[in-house]
C-alpha cells in the first residue's frame, strides 16, 4: 500500500504537456550550460583559434597546451596547495565544533538554549563585511597577516552557524531512547556522542563536508584581506592575479578557471545528493 501511495500518477496526460515541458527545459538547460561550456571549449583551443574571434565556437582540434601551461606553472601549484591547507583543517574544524554544539542543542537543552541556538545560527545570515575590520586588526596585531592561519581560523569560526544548525537538526532525529539506553549501560555523554550518535550521522556529516569544502575552497574575500605575498595566495585569489598576467591568453585563463574549479566540481558530481540535501535541510527546517 505505501509504495503505491508514494508513486506519482504515471498516466500519459492527454494535453501533451510533457513535450512542451521537455522542450522548455532543453532550451533553458542550454542557456544555463552555455557559460560553463564556453569556458570548457576555450580551454582546449589554441591562441590562434581564439584570437580569430572563435571563443565560443566548437574547437577544430583538441588542444591541451593550455592545461600543460597551467599545471607546470609553479605558482598554480602553490596556490592549490595553499587552498588545500586552508580548506581541509577549516572544514574539519567547523564540522567538529558544529557537532559539539549541535549535540548540546539537540540532546542537552537548557533554559535559554533555544535563544542561544538562534543567535548562533543567525550568524549565517550576516555579511562578513561587518567583522572585516576588527579581524584584520586582530590578526595584524598577532602578526599573522600574510600567513594561512587567519583564513583557517576565520573559516572555522564562520562555519560554526551552519554546521551547528545542520548537526542539531540531524541529532534531533536520532531517538532519545538510544541515548538513554546507552546511559543506562554506563556510558557518559562523550561516549554517547562518539559511539552511538556520530556513527548514525554519517549522511549529515557528508552533507556538511560537501558544503563546507565547497564554500571554503571557493572563498575570495578572506584571502583577499589576509594575504599579501604571492606565495600565500589561495587559488581563487591566484586566479584573479594570474588572469591579469595572462591578459589575452584566454585559453589559458579558461583552463585555469577549470583547474581551479575541478575539486568542487568533482565533489559536486559525486556528492550531489548531499549538496542538495544540505541546502534544503538547513533551509526548510531552519
Amino acid at each position, binding site marked *: *500500500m505505501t509504495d*503505491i501511495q508514494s508513486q506519482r*500518477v504515471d*498516466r500519459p496526460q*492527454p494535453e501533451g504537456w510533457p513535450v512542451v515541458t521537455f522542450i522548455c527545459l532543453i532550451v533553458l538547460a542550454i542557456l544555463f550550460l552555455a557559460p560553463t561550456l564556453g569556458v570548457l571549449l576555450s580551454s582546449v583551443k589554441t591562441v590562434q583559434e581564439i584570437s580569430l574571434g572563435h571563443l565560443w565556437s566548437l574547437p577544430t582540434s583538441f588542444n591541451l597546451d593550455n592545461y600543460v601551461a597551467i599545471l607546470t606553472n609553479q605558482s598554480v601549484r602553490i596556490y592549490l596547495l595553499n587552498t588545500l591547507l586552508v580548506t581541509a583543517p577549516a572544514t574539519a574544524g567547523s564540522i567538529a565544533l558544529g557537532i559539539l554544539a549541535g549535540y548540546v542543542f539537540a540532546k542537552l537543552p537548557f533554559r535559554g538554549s533555544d535563544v542561544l541556538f538562534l543567535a548562533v545560527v543567525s550568524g549565517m545570515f550576516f555579511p562578513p563585511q561587518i567583522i572585516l575590520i576588527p579581524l584584520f586588526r586582530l590578526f595584524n596585531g598577532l602578526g599573522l597577516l600574510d600567513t594561512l592561519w587567519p583564513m583557517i581560523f576565520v573559516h572555522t569560526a564562520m562555519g560554526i552557524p551552519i554546521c551547528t544548525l545542520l548537526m542539531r537538526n540531524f541529532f534531533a532525529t536520532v531517538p532519545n531512547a538510544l541515548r538513554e539506553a546507552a546511559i543506562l549501560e554506563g556510558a557518559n555523554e562523550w561516549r554517547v556522542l562518539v559511539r552511538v550518535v556520530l556513527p548514525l550521522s554519517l549522511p549529515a556529516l557528508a552533507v556538511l563536508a560537501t558544503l563546507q569544502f565547497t564554500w571554503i575552497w571557493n572563498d575570495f574575500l578572506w584571502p583577499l584581506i589576509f594575504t599579501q605575498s604571492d606565495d600565500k595566495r589561495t587559488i581563487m585569489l591566484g586566479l584573479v592575479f594570474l588572469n591579469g598576467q595572462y591578459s589575452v591568453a584566454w585559453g589559458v585563463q579558461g583552463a585555469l578557471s577549470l583547474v581551479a574549479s575541478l575539486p568542487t566540481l568533482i565533489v559536486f558530481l559525486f556528492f550531489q545528493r548531499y549538496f542538495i540535501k544540505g541546502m534544503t535541510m538547513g533551509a526548510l527546517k531552519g
Partner: protein
Amino acid sequence: MTELRLQDIHKSFGSVETIRGIDLTVEAGELVVLVGPSGCGKSTLLRIISGLESVTSGKIIIGGRDSTRAPPAQRGIAMVFQSYALFPHMTVAENISFGLRLAKAGKKEIDQKVAQVADILQIAGLLERWPKQLSGGQRQRVAIGRAIIRNPRVFLFDEPLSNLDAALRVQMRLEIARLHRRLGATMVYVTHDQVEAMTLADKIVVLNAGRIEQIGSPIELYNAPANRFVAQFIGSPRMNFFPAEFSASQQPRELILGAARFAVGDPVRATRAGEPIEAGVRPEHLAIGIDSPPLFEAEIAIVERLGSETIVYLDAPGSAEPVAIKVTASCGLRPGERVPVTLADGVIHLFDAAGGDGIGRVNISRKPN
C-alpha cells in the same frame, strides 16, 4: 441496476501481475467491501476503479458508460483516502467546495451545497476551521463531505478507518453505516479488517494475490466459505483445521475426524479414496467435555477471559497451530489441564487438503447418547 461493473481486469506493474482477472458487479445502493491480506491487490483495484491507476486489460463500466480510459474526474466517482488528504492551507469549507470552485460554480450554489453536506455530517460549526485544528474523526468527516458534495455514482473508501484509534473506529464505522442508509449510495470500501467488512458490507469480496476467492454476503461467507482461504480469513478467532479422511470414495461413506466418525451426505463432493482432506471447525462449534465421543485429547495452553466469552487454546496433536475453542464464560478450566475435545452443534467444513477448494460441509447436531 448495475452501477459498477468490472470485466476481466488485469493489472501489471512491470513484470509483476498484481490483478489477475477480476470480474465484479456492484448494484446501485450496495456497500461492497473489498477485503484481503496485505498485498492482495484490494487497494490497487480501488485505484483502478477510481482511475488513478490504469488497467493493463479489461473494462470498467460505471453507470452504464465505459469509463476504462476516462480520467478520474469524469467517472462520477469520489474517493475518501486513508490519510484524508485534506488540503492543509484551506478551511473546511474550502476543502469541501474545492471541486465546485474548480468547476467555477456560483457562490450561492457553493454555499448552499456546503451547508447541506455539513448538515448531514454534523460539521456545520467547523466550516471555518483549518484541518490542523480538527480531530481525526472530524477530519474524516470533512473528507467524506468532500466526496458527498460531488454527488458521485460510486463512493470509494480506501481504508478510511485505519488511522483512527480503536474506540473512534467503532464510532466512525457506525456513522458510515448510517450514512450509507441515509444516502442510499453505492459504495466500494477497502479494508484489511474483517470485522469492518462483516459489519458494514452488503456484499464482501475476498481477494487473495490478485484474484477473487469468494463473493457473498457476510453470513454466506461465514457459514459457507468456498475454500480454505476464505474459511480461515473470515471469523475471529480463526477456524480450526484438522486433517481428516473419508472411509470410502463413494456413498455410503463416513468422515473420519480424530477418533470420531460422521455420516456424510450427498452434497459432499466425491473424492478418490485416501485423498487427504482438511476439516475446518469454528471455535464455537467445538466443546470441551465428555458429552459426545471425543475427537481427541489435548492440553490447555492458554485461557483468554474476555468477559463476554472465554477462549481456550489447546496444543493438539496433528495440528500445527493451537486449537481455539469458545466456551462459556464461567468455566473453571486452567492451563496445563488435559481435556477431551468434542464437537458441539455446528458445521464441519471440508476442504481438499492440496488445493484448499471446498468440498462440502457436514451438519452436526448432538446425538443423544
